[in-house]
Structures are given as structure tokens and as C-alpha cells.
């Protein structure tokens, strides 16, 4: 038994390494923050913890400028506001509670991924461990969580949705879906894929033959009803509670801001240059393509991909949906890449990227190269003050977009080529 085989076939070793990696980064982060004016901790973490402090003083988290999240997050990080040691843990360590929570989210996500791979995809523990390590031992993932970015928390919610659906716990899935959308809006796209994945009554019953009522009844299966109702109720209850306590600023910062924001500052999105160009112009001055940007994005991530792919492989469909959503989004930063990375362990085992290693390596190189070129142009703009908007950043973002579309084409084609599972045997 080789060393790697021994490592990956023992989950305790894999998870031990993942936890150690995060602990090491947490301690390193504390050291760097205490000794260097350049901080390890992400700016967003200071926003979260400031918002928690406002809450602990009976104020609104939205009193902190640029807090654009649900108050739930600030409440979750309440222990970071402790000013005295508690449970024999000093206050300065409590300040890192949020990072520990986000890192723990990573670990739980990894555990769910491993279980699903072993139990649902019937993979051997060693092979499953290798694919899980793409998430657990991914330095980018560990780095983002330990710097205090909340994406790790979102990943655990999203993978838990998948886990609950595949295990047939649809009420739980509905609650998690409602929670996920409340947290960060974008998980609503998974409602579409889970919906299609559940039952196929609509195909059997056609309008006209048995009438509208029966058709609706057939479409709205018990499972779908449970999912829709539970997610909607969870979503609305959370919103009502937050609105009751924090009023209009909750809607303003948690939703309206994200739906209407036009991020003019340079980011990976292909639309970025045109957003900068047109947001400065007066409104309604001619045709603005970015106002139609939601069409390809929603068409792919909410309609076409779930419809054609969900029944083949739900996890890979969620990957394709997220990939399409991020690629066609009007704003895109590297944290968004985590949103789809979490699904890679489910898709890669049967992908042509792995079957044809040269293709896989080529895709990885292009994906990294696209970012590198963009980052190089962005660095010139941000720190050297060179005006690289056009053609530099413009071409770099188009290139990166093209690479992403090409990869998404491969993913979509892979998933669509999977054999359809026999009907009626999904939920056990």
C-alpha cells in the first residue's frame, strides 16, 4: 500500500490534514495581523465583525457602511464581539470565531462531499478521498475561509441541499434552499434543477387529455410541493423576521443593492468595460447591452441546463448552472469561483477532462492563464496607474470569458452524454 493510498483511504487522515491546514493558516493569520501593517484578515471580515458589534450594542448591522448581507451572518458571529475571556478562551481568540466557523464549514462540506461520493456514486473510499481533497486540501478554499470570507458557509449550505435532496430529505432541502437564497440570492438557481430532478409526472400527463387540474396535480408532485413550500416558507419567515427587526435597510442592503448594483470597478466579468462606459452616461441613452445580460445568464442557468441535465446528474447540473451563472454575471471576483469549485468532486470522476488528461490540463492552464493575463492588466491599472481599460482589460476579460464558455461547453456536453438513470429509482 503506497503512502498516498494510505492517506486517501483513511478519512481521518484526510480530514486531519484539512483541519491542520486551516489551523496553521489561522495561527499564521493571527501572527501576520499582529506584526504586519499588511493584514491577512479579509476586509469583509472586519465588516462582518463590526456589524456584529453594532448588533451587540442593540444597533442595526447596517449601521456599518458596506455591510450588504443578512443580519443572520452578523448574529452568527456574535461571539466575535466578546470583550472578556469566556469558556477560558481569551477575547482576542473569540474574535477569530467567525473564521473558525467558516473553516469548519469547509470541513463539513468536505464530509458531505465524501459521503455523497461513497454512498451515492458508489465510489471507493480512496478514490472518493482523492476527489474530496480537491476541496478539502485546496489552498484557495482554505485561504478564503481562514481570511474570514463567508463563502465557506455558503458552500456548506449548497452542498447540504444536494445531500438532502439525494437522500430524499426534501423538507430539509427546502429549508436549506430558503436559507441559501436568504443568505446570498444566487442559490435560487438550484430550485430549478432540483425541481426538474424530482419526478417527471408532467411528461406522462398532457393537457387536453385529462384537463388542467390533473396536469397541475401531476406536475406538482408531493416532493415538489414539499420543496417549494418549505423553501418559500423558510425564505419568507427569515425575511419577515429580519424586516421586523431591521426594517427597510435590510431589504435595501441585503437584496436591492445586489439586484441593482452596477459594479463599475474592474472585475473579471466580461461586461465590466461596458458597465463602466454606460453607467456614467445618462440613463436611457440608446441601446445598452448590459441591460439584457440577464437573458443568456438566466436562460442557461435556470432554464436550459436544469431542463436537459438535471435528471442525468443533479450534482454536475448544479456545477454547470453555477458555472454559467458566474461566467455570464455582470460582476465576477475570484471568490465567486468557489461557488462552482465545490461541485467539481462530483463532476470530475466521469468527465472528459479526466478521461483525456491532456484536455483537462489544457483547460486548467487556459483557465489559470485567463486569470493571470487579466490580473496582470489589473495590476498595471490599480497600482501603476496605466490606463489599461481598453484594450488590455477589455480583451483579457473577453479571453477569460471565452475560456470559461469553452469549459462550460465541455461540462454541458459531458453531462448531457451521461445515460439517463432508470426512472422512479432516485429516491430511496
Amino acid at each position, binding site marked *: 500500500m503506497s503512502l498516498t493510498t494510505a492517506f486517501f483511504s483513511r478519512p481521518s487522515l484526510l480530514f486531519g490534514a484539512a483541519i491542520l491546514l486551516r489551523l496553521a493558516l489561522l495561527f499564521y493569520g493571527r501572527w501576520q*495581523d*499582529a*506584526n*504586519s*501593517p499588511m*493584514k491577512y484578515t479579509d*476586509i469583509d471580515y*472586519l465588516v462582518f465583525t*463590526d456589524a456584529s458589534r453594532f448588533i451587540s450594542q442593540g444597533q442595526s448591522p447596517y449601521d456599518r*457602511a*458596506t455591510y450588504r448581507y443578512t443580519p443572520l451572518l452578523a448574529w452568527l458571529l456574535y461571539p466575535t464581539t466578546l470583550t472578556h475571556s469566556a469558556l477560558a478562551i481569551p477575547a482576542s481568540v473569540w474574535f477569530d470565531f467567525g473564521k473558525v466557523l467558516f473553516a469548519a464549514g469547509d470541513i463539513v462540506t468536505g464530509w458531505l462531499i465524501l459521503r455523497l461520493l461513497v454512498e451515492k456514486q458508489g465510489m471507493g473510499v480512496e478514490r472518493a478521498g482523492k476527489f474530496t481533497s480537491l476541496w478539502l486540501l485546496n489552498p484557495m478554499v482554505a485561504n478564503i475561509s481562514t481570511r474570514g470570507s463567508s463563502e465557506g458557509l455558503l458552500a456548506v449550505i449548497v452542498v447540504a441541499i444536494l445531500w438532502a435532496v439525494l437522500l430524499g430529505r426534501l423538507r430539509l432541502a427546502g429549508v436549506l434552499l430558503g436559507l441559501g437564497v436568504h443568505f446570498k440570492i444566487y442559490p435560487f438557481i438550484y430550485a430549478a434543477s432540483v425541481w426538474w430532478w424530482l419526478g417527471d409526472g408532467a411528461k406522462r400527463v398532457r393537457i387536453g387529455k385529462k384537463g388542467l387540474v390533473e396536469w397541475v396535480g401531476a406536475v406538482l408532485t408531493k416532493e415538489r410541493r414539499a420543496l417549494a413550500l418549505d423553501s418559500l416558507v423558510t425564505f419568507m419567515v427569515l425575511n419577515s423576521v429580519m424586516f421586523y427587526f431591521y426594517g427597510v435597510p435590510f431589504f435595501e442592503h441585503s437584496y436591492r443593492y445586489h439586484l441593482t448594483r452596477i459594479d*463599475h*470597478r474592474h472585475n473579471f466579468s*466580461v*461586461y465590466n*468595460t*461596458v458597465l*463602466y*462606459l454606460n*453607467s*456614467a452616461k445618462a440613463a436611457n441613452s440608446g441601446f445598452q*447591452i448590459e441591460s439584457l*445580460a440577464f437573458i*443568456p445568464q438566466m*436562460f*442557461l442557468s435556470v432554464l*436550459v*441546463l436544469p431542463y*436537459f441535465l438535471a435528471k442525468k446528474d443533479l450534482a454536475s447540473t448544479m456545477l454547470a448552472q453555477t458555472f*454559467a451563472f458566474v*461566467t*455570464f454575471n455582470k460582476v465576477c471576483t475570484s471568490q465567486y469561483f468557489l461557488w462552482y469549485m465545490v461541485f467539481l468532486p462530483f463532476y470530475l470522476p466521469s468527465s472528459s477532462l479526466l478521461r483525456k488528461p491532456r484536455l483537462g490540463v489544457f483547460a486548467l492552464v487556459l483557465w489559470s492563464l485567463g486569470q493571470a493575463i487579466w490580473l496582470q492588466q489589473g495590476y498595471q*491599472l*490599480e*497600482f*501603476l*496607474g496605466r*490606463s*489599461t*481599460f*481598453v484594450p488590455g482589460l*477589455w*480583451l483579457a476579460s*473577453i479571453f477569460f*470569458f*471565452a475560456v*470559461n*464558455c*469553452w469549459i*462550460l*461547453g*465541455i461540462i*454541458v*456536453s*459531458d*453531462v*448531457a*452524454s451521461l*445515460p*439517463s438513470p432508470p426512472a422512479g429509482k432516485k429516491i430511496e
Partner: protein
Amino acid sequence: MKQRLTYLLPANSSLAPSDLSVKADRLDFAKAPQAHEEWRVTLGLHELPDELKLFLVGCQELHLRWSSRRPHVLTPPLVSRLPAGLHVFLTPSGVEDDLPICNLLKKLVGDESKCDSVHESFARLPAVSESPAQPATFQWYQNSSIRREGLAEVFLGKICPPSSANSDWGRACDSLIRTLDDASHVDVDFDAAGQTLDFTAYWSAEDDAVSRESSGRVYRKAGPEGRLEVGVLHAEEAKDSGELSLGGYLTVIGEDERPSATLFSFPSRHHPLPPTSAGATFKTTIQHPSGLHPKLHLHLPRQPLTQRPQETCTLHTYLTLPSTLFIDRFQLSDRLFLDSQNLVSLQSLIGEDDLEAPDWVIRRWGSAALVELAAPGAGLDGEGEMWTATIPLHLRYLSPLLSDVGTDSTAGVQIPWPIVFWACEVEDAELNLDNNPFDRVDLGFDGLFTPQTLFYHVPPAGDAMRLVEEIQVPVLRADSAGLVQIGIFLAVVGGFAWICWQLARAVDNGKGKGKKRR
């Protein structure tokens, strides 16, 4: 109308009564070219142009302070400074009043200024008293030169009408207005309690000593009703710290036949640096390349900084920034970061502090910040002669450049030099700082300290070309708009079509297989 003219000579200047010659409506001073001049005219409401008079009815207080971008030497007792540009402080008499001050300001600094209304474009200063009945004071600033025609029209239009240029007073008035451009600073102060408006201009001797003969500034009494008081003064050594002493001659034109000698002392808010740190100046630079996060460096000689004017003094800088730049108050809250930049704390930040908004959605003029600097302690030798503090700034995105503006894809943004001073709280309750004929208050930064605070001003380096730095900011050019949009449109359509085609092909293949199997 009252005029007060003060010639201020450098300390220890020789001055004899024979240098002064009193005439019926003026005083001729032989050494005028070496003297700094302060001209203050005090006007009653009836002496103001109608538009201004109407406007002032709604004002409790109005202070306009314009400071030149040319470096200028100031002499005691007039040593207070402000960053170059026009600073406005307005206190409306009603709490909810929105006064039409922007029309007035646009006459002074041009139509393109960021001024729509007080509530939209001004910054509200923190309330001094908790009483809600006390109207707030609003601040506005623009880093630009001032139009002297506008100044004359708005404030002096009635006492110096263009048609009066054929009288003696008219010619004198005209000579003063014509040289307003050369002034180091111009102040306008109105207080509803006094119902008078003070218009003050200060010309530094170094500024125009050469051109003095040609500029031909003439001071005259304005007719029999007007009053003109002329002081020819120089600083003497003061007995008490916190006080300034002036000696010289005072003359009331038309009343005194000869100048009367005088020597008087008064407590002063603003002071030059004490002899222990005399000669210290500061220099402002912007780190190159400036990128989108320009760093503003303040360079001061280390040794004089170790000598505080008094034990209680702390070193400060006061910045006024245009709306294109902003300070991140959260960045300036980390102890280690502040230490590394030689800063103590951001003590006040008023105005536009949005961390994300681009310049084209900002309707306020910008922001003003007071930062305490970590002055070096004594006895730290061998750390280099110069000491540097750094204020991190951030740029907003600027509106895309119109296609007919040159070929550059950068735009110039001007950053005025801040001012640097020691602030020293005095415990001496006896010291009445208001009892000063040359007092200057409502400067923006003074209100952020207790009333009993002395300011020791560090002058900017004399070799500076101008008290403004300019950086080049990357901007997108609008003339590439067509190409940019087409490129993005083709990419999105192409990418979208590719994905759809891959999907359709795979789905179709699957169906084919399915049929075959069946």
C-alpha cells in the same frame, strides 16, 4: 464703510516716522514694497449688492476663505493657513433652510463646480451643541482659483461699481480689485449678530514685490463718510507664551495729523513656530506611480519636530479633498497600520466618505479630514534627517473621457497640499483668545479642537512651485465605446451559442443512442 489697512513688516525691521507721510485721504509708506499688506473693509448691509443682501437675510453666519495655490510667506499675527482653494462655511438661520448659495459660488469659481444645493452638495459639520434648535454649519470646498471679477461683483459691487473709475476712490478701489488675483488669501465674514460683512485680502510681500510698482495698489479713504485706519506694524518679542506683540504706528486718515507710535500685546490663537523649531517646513509629494490608491507623503525635518512648542502639543494635518478622492476611515483604524504610516489617528472625517461610489454619482464636493501625526520623539538619532508621514488616499472611477479631449487615456486630478500644525490646549482660563484684532476663526479645523487651543503653523517649503500636486488618473476613453460594445456583444453571443450547440449536440446524440437501443 470702514477700511483697515495694515502693513506688516518682518520682525526687527527699522521703522522711522519719516517713512510715513500722512495725506488728506491716504497714507504714503516708503517701505510698502517690503511689507505684507492686509486690507479689511467692513460693510453695512446697505452697502452690499441686492442679491447678496437678500441671501444674507437667511444666514446666521457665512465665511468664505480663499487661499492661493502659490506658496506665500505669512507673518505674525496673520500666520494661519488653509489648503489652496475656496472654503465655505455657512450657517443658515433656520434649521431646515436650503439657501441658494450655489448661484453665488458659481460666480466665484465657475459653473462646473459640484454645487447643486446646500443639502445635496455641502457637508454638515458635527454639531457643537446638542440643541436641535441650533442650526448646523455646512462646509463646501473647491480646489480652484477664484475669479476676481466674480468676487468684486458679488461683494464689492455697490462700493466699487465699475462706473466709479473716474473718481479718486474709484481708481483706488479698482487697483485693489485688479490685484486680488495676487492675494495670498481672501476672507469674507458675515455674522447676523453684527449685521456687517468683512472683506479681507492679504498680499504677501514676496508674492508681488517685483510687480508692486506696476500693479499700483492704492489705498484711499472713500469719501468723507468712509473711515480708513492704517497700521504700520512689526512683531516684537512677546512676554507671555500664547501672546503676540506688535509695535509700530497707527493713523486714522482724516483725523490724525501724524502717526501715533504704539506697542501692544494680545493673546493669539495662531502662532508661527517658536524659535526652537524655526525654519522647519513641510513638503507634500504623491508616491509615484500613484495608481488608483495614491499615497500622500508629508516630509518634515526630523530634528525640529522633536521640539514641541509646548508640552501639550500634538502634531496634525488637515486635508481637503475633491470628490474624486476619498479616505477610508476603516483603513485608518488599525493601530499597526497607523504606526507604519507615522499616524496616530483619523480624528475627523466629514463630507463624502462613500467607499464605492464612482465620481459621477457623487454630488458632494468631497471631504475634509483631520489626522493626528505621530511626531518623532527626541533622542532617536541616525534615522535620517527627514521624517515622513503618509496618508493613504483612494481614487474614485472618473467619468469616461469624451472623444474630443486629446488622445490621452488619463485625466489630471489635483490634490491640494494639506496644512500642518501643532495644536496645543492651554489650561490658562485667563487667556482670552477672542480679544485679538487679527483673530481668524472658522477655518474648518479649529472647530474640531476646544476653544482654548493654540495653533503653531508649519509653513510649506519655500521652494515649492505651487501648493497643489497633480496626478494622472487612468480613465476609459468614450471614443472606443463602439468597438468595446461590439467586442463584448460578439463574445457573449459566441460563448452562449457555443454552449447551446454543445448541449444540443450531446442531447441529440443521446436521443440517437436511445432510439437505436429501442
